């Protein structure tokens, strides 16, 4: 309240109460109330039941599948997303503008469409799958492919603007002090890019943990092998096991909140470094 009075002097602009009221009402009804249901509904279970559900072997194996594939996809995107951002900012090549635009395709293409397209490409008899002696679709590799597709723009689009803003003078200074190109990259450019890469990775990773649409088609969905956590929730819902679905959802929600919190800390630390 003190801050409200503090700023009264400045508040010539109208609409504070209207826009605040509207925003609060909207997020309360559509975000906070619905999300709180996960917490409220989980309370219908006692602690032992809750622990039983969330530590059931099938659930634990789904955490492992979701976590490891999201991590692998995130790391793939860190490497290739950074290379793509680098190439798009620094080099000239044919169809560059189209390629640049296509990086955003995973944001624009419905996940189910991406799912069936990737599945038919990487299936054992698919365009790409037929050239491999091992199975890609319907194994964890397939899940990694779908999650890499989904996460790619997060890394490219966070690294690209930072790379664009690195001034040529810094690199010239490094070179004129006798650094080789590799040294300049490792000691000047990479430290500048690191916070953006880390942010892009966390965004892609967070998205991958919850991803459903593109994965269900390519995963094969075998319990204990290629079953992701969101699918466990879906299966429990189809069996009208609301308590079970909600308990698993709570585990996922808390994981995502911790991730979101860490992303904010990373960005805050990066900004602070920048200001200094």
């Amino acid at each position: 309240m003190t801050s409200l009075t503090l700023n009264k002097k400045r508040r010539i602009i109208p609409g504070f109460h209207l826009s605040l009221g509207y925003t609060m009402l909207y997020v309360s009804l559509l975000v906070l109330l619905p999300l709180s249901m996960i917490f409220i509904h989980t309370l219908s279970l006692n602690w032992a039941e809750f622990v039983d559900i969330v530590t059931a072997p099938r659930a634990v194996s789904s955490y492992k599948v979701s976590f490891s594939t999201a991590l692998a996809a995130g790391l793939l995107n860190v490497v290739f997303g950074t290379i793509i951002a680098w190439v798009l900012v620094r080099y000239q090549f044919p169809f560059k503008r189209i390629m640049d635009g296509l990086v955003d395709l995973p944001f624009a293409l419905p996940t189910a469409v991406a799912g069936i397209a990737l599945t038919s490409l990487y299936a054992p008899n698919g365009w790409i799958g037929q050239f491999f002696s091992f199975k890609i679709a319907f194994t964890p590799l397939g899940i990694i492919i779908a999650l890499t597709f989904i996460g790619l723009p997060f890394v490219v689009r966070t690294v690209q603007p930072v790379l664009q803003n690195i001034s040529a003078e810094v690199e010239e200074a490094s070179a004129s002090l006798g650094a080789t190109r590799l040294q300049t990259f490792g000691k000047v450019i990479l430290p500048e890019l690191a916070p953006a890469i880390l942010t892009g990775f966390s965004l892609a990773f967070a998205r991958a943990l919850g991803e459903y649409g593109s994965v269900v088609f390519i995963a094969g969905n075998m319990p204990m092998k290629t079953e992701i956590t969101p699918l466990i929730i879906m299966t429990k819902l189809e069996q009208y096991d609301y308590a079970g679905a909600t308990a698993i959802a709570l585990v996922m929600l808390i994981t995502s909140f911790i991730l979101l919190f860490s992303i904010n800390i990373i960005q805050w630390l990066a900004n602070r470094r920048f200001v200094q």
Partner: protein
Amino acid sequence: MEQSTAIKQAAPEKNKAIAKSSALQEPRFVRYTLTFIALVFLGFFIVLPLVSIFITAFQKGVDVYMAAITHPDALAAIKLTLTVVVIAVPLNAIFGIMAAWVLTKFNFKGKNLLLTIVDLPFAVSPVIAGLIFILLFGAQGLFGDWLFENDIKVVFALPGIVLATIFVTLPFVARELIPLMQTQGTSEEEASISLGAGGFKTFWHVTLPNIKWGLLYGLILCNARAIGEFGAVSVVSGHIRGMTNTMPLHIEILYNEYQFAAAFAVASLMSVIAIITLIVKDIIAWKSKSV
């Protein structure tokens, strides 16, 4: 003779140019390798999937394609998807403007918390986004009995699909507008108000022209996600053919019934929308840069 001296004179300059470029640019083979890696990666993950959708869609001929997209169930799915978009996107646009207005034009306690809450739907799995509305409005849900007594259907009907879509697309417009309006500050609005313009007039004539490209950008991203949302809608829709199946759900059913050509035909329609989204996005980015 003259020529050779000219070459001799030119040579050191040329060497200098090479020395400069090798300190500031990678050797040619590194540049080519990196470009090659980037293009192969984009080819395998983006271009090939996109191309394969259209080829598979027309694999069994134009007749099968046309039959698939004019099938009554497909038309019902298209109509439902459009209905959902027409309700959800404008609501989130109004919300986005309101939220951006309060979060950028004023300072108040709890501002950062509100900012985090606006972002929250991005951190939630689509499946959970569907689940929460089942817990609220489903048969065993909080309002389940009341809805049943009053004969109102939310879950497994249009309202549920709209609610789930609003939830997953809620941050898009606000996310685009907040950083934009932050950098623009409040001085133009203050000038307009002190010259006697009303609040709405100020918004319409001062703020809106400044944020129109950002708003459009947020709108098309919101629109793309609303059209394509799968997980959340899948939970609340109930998969009733010709009734509560949106386009992505219709694709799933066709695919699971091994009607691949038909599934990809409907998918190709959605891919066209995605490509248009990308083009519009590119135009907006270009326009907003040139303004």
